[in-house]
Structure formats: structure tokens, C-alpha cells
């Protein structure tokens, strides 16, 4: 390998790595949402690409209906007594949507903040 070729290779590698890292760090995060039940990921959704629809999830005979509407996601119906998950409203920068009785969690794959207190 000539000296010139080596330098070009080095520069290209560095440039490529920088580009990859830049994309990884600066991709518009917060649009990818995961729906998990009892720790298992059921769905990974990119809300910016999802069409309006409803997802039904069952747990021990009880149902949750999750709605995706205009790029937002929320709990539309739940066969649980407290309805905390419905009261949480649309998923946003704050806390995840949680249905404790049905062990269901909807949260951003890459949260905007470290936590919601």
C-alpha cells in the first residue's frame, strides 16, 4: 500500500465512522415506541410512519385497546378497574403509559428525558 493510499483509507474510515456516529446520535429520536407486556416486547412502532389503527392486546382474559391516531398513541379502552392507563392520555415526553393490572407498558424506545418524576 502506498503512503497516499493509506492516508486516503484512513481519512475515509474516519469520515465514515464520524458519519455513522453522527446519524446514530442525531437521528430524530422519540418516534419509536415499544409496547411491552410482562417485559416482552410485543410491538416496536415508528409513530411517524404508522397509519391510524387500533391494537388489541389481551392478558388473562382482559383486553386493552391501544389507538394510534395522527402519529399519537394512547390507551383507548382497558378491562382494568382503575383506568390509570387511560387517564395518562397520549404518550409524550413525560411518563410511559402503564396498565398495571394487565402488565402492559407503552413507552418510547429512546426517551427524551432521563425520567419523569
Amino acid at each position, binding site marked *: 500500500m502506498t503512503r497516499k493510499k493509506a492516508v486516503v483509507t484512513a481519512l475515509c474510515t474516519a469520515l465514515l465512522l*464520524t458519519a455513522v456516529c453522527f446519524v446514530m446520535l442525531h437521528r430524530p429520536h422519540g418516534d419509536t415506541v415499544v409496547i411491552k407486556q410482562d417485559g416482552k416486547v410485543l410491538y416496536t412502532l415508528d409513530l411517524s410512519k404508522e397509519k391510524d389503527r387500533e391494537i388489541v392486546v389481551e392478558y388473562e382474559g382482559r383486553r386493552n385497546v391501544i389507538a394510534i391516531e395522527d402519529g399519537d398513541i394512547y390507551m383507548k379502552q382497558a378491562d*382494568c378497574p382503575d383506568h390509570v392507563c387511560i387517564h395518562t392520555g397520549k404518550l409524550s415526553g413525560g411518563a410511559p403509559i402503564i396498565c398495571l393490572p394487565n402488565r402492559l407498558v407503552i413507552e418510547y424506545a429512546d426517551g427524551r428525558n*432521563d425520567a419523569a418524576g
Partner: protein
Amino acid sequence: MKLCKLIPVIAAAATLCGCGGQHMEQYQMFAMDTYVTLSGYCDRKTLEDAGEEVRRLEGLWSVNIESSDIARLNRDGSAELSAETAGLMSFTLSMSERTGGALDPTIYPVLREWGFTTDEHHVPDDDTIAELLENVGWEKVTLDGRSASLPVGTAVDAGAVAKGYAADIIAERLKSGGVTAGIVDLGGNVLTFGQKPDGSDWKVSVRDPFGDGAAGTLSVGECSVVTSGSYERYFEQDGVRYHHIIDPATGRPADTGLESVTVIAGESKLCDALSTALFVMGEDRAFDLWRESDDFEMIMITSDKRLLISEGIADRFEPDSKKKDYSAEVIRR
């Protein structure tokens, strides 16, 4: 140029764009009637072990686990408590005294009557509430070292402090196990410790009780942030909304014109206890207590959409610029 000469170039490029940063591991579980997220710059096993500790504490404190210290005390009227439970009870009672009874572990039978511990919600009639209130009062609890006793008819629940108390124990455990930084989040009972590798502050959102998302974001160092709000756990009957924060003085949901109280302090147990108590006390009494204290700061969101921020935290709280209907006010000492 040899390959070894390329390595520094590649490494420099990687470091420059931040790929050399440490990864924060996460472990999530359902425990203590909430969704627990443990995060730290450590391996997953360390977090799983800490999760086991959360589970163990739940087994000591849950009113719904028959073998727990608290359930035994309620059933038998007296019990020898584990060191952790005795510590929790002792701290809870000291906070009851400090808040003039706004926090009271003996409110449990009233809370149960409303159905908030069983999810069988209903509005109790006046006579039932009056009868139950006769057995309410934190002074009725006798705690001598690890021996606790209750008069007949009185029962306790440490639910308003347990998550905070647990968060402190878990963070201490992680730190002594060599974890340099992380977050213990017990369903919004948040505790941060150490510093992120990039030196930046921890960002903790404060929920907007009126809508989606956050009312604002706190940028903090090592501390705890806990919110008590009326906006999530509630039920409606005949068009009236009843939330789960019961005023020990009336036996009914605290009606103080507040939607949420967020407390920021060094210890999570203090945040947890105070967030409930200050909600019950209302704006004026809460700020009176804040003025005579130096160990916590707070953010209150009122029903008429005022954001009241104690001055010690004002420069670390940024209200969400999109939420224009709030009026923010910094409260001075």
C-alpha cells in the same frame, strides 16, 4: 502509513462524535404496585439483583401480602418488625409529626373503604367515614425499637413513603456495589445518583396534570424528584371525580385546589412523604412549611393553572414553552 497509525485517527473520530461514551443499562419490572425502572452504568446482573431487593422490600411492606410486616401488624395488632420496616415506620411517624398529621399511615382503613387499595371504588357514606376516622391518628401507633403495636380498629399502610424509602435503599446498594451513576425510578418516584459520563445534568420531566406530556423539565444533579397528583388514580361517580389522596382530617379526597405537588430533595423518602403531605396541606400551609425548612424544594400545579416554584429550584426548572395557559410564579422565602 501502517495500520497502527490509523488507530488513533479512528479512535479520535469515534470519541469526537461521542461513540466512546458508556452505555446505560436498564432493567424494568412490576413491583410495589408500580412499574419500576432501574438504570445504571453497570452490567444488567447488578440491576437484576437490585430488582430482587425491591421485591424483598415489597414483601416486607405490602398491605396485600399476608406475610408482610405491615400485614402482620394490622392483623395481630402487634408485631416484631424487620430493621427496614421499623426504619420505614419510624420515618413515617416522624413525617406525620412534622406535617401536623397531613401524612398519616393510619388513614389506611379509610383509603380501603374508598376502594383505592382494592380497586373496588365507591363513595362511603358520612357515618362510615366518621366511624373509621375515630381510629385514625398517627399518635396511636406505638413503636419501640422494632416492636410495633396498634390499638384495636387501627391499621397502617406505609404506601405514601414506601417507594421513596425503597429508592434510597436501592440507590445506596447500587452505589456501594460500585455503580458510578444511575436512576432508580419506582413508578415516577425518581432518584438520580452520580454523574452522567458526559457531565450533563439529569433531565426529569414534571407531568402536566391537565394534558399530555410535561409541564416542564428539571435539570438536576444527584437528588430525588417525586410527584403526588390527583390526575391519575381517581374514579368518577355521579359526575364527580374522587382522587386517591385522602385528607386524614376529613377522610375524603384532599380538596385544596391543587392538581400536583412535586418535591425535590436529597432523599427520596423525604420527597415521597412530603409530596403527599403538602398536597393535603394546600398551597399556603405547604409554603409555610417550606419557609421554615431547608431540606426540600417544590413545584405546585394548582387547579387554576398556576405553576408555583420555590426559589431554590427555579433556575433548574424550565416550563414547557408550548404550554401557554400556565402562569409561572417563583415563591420567595
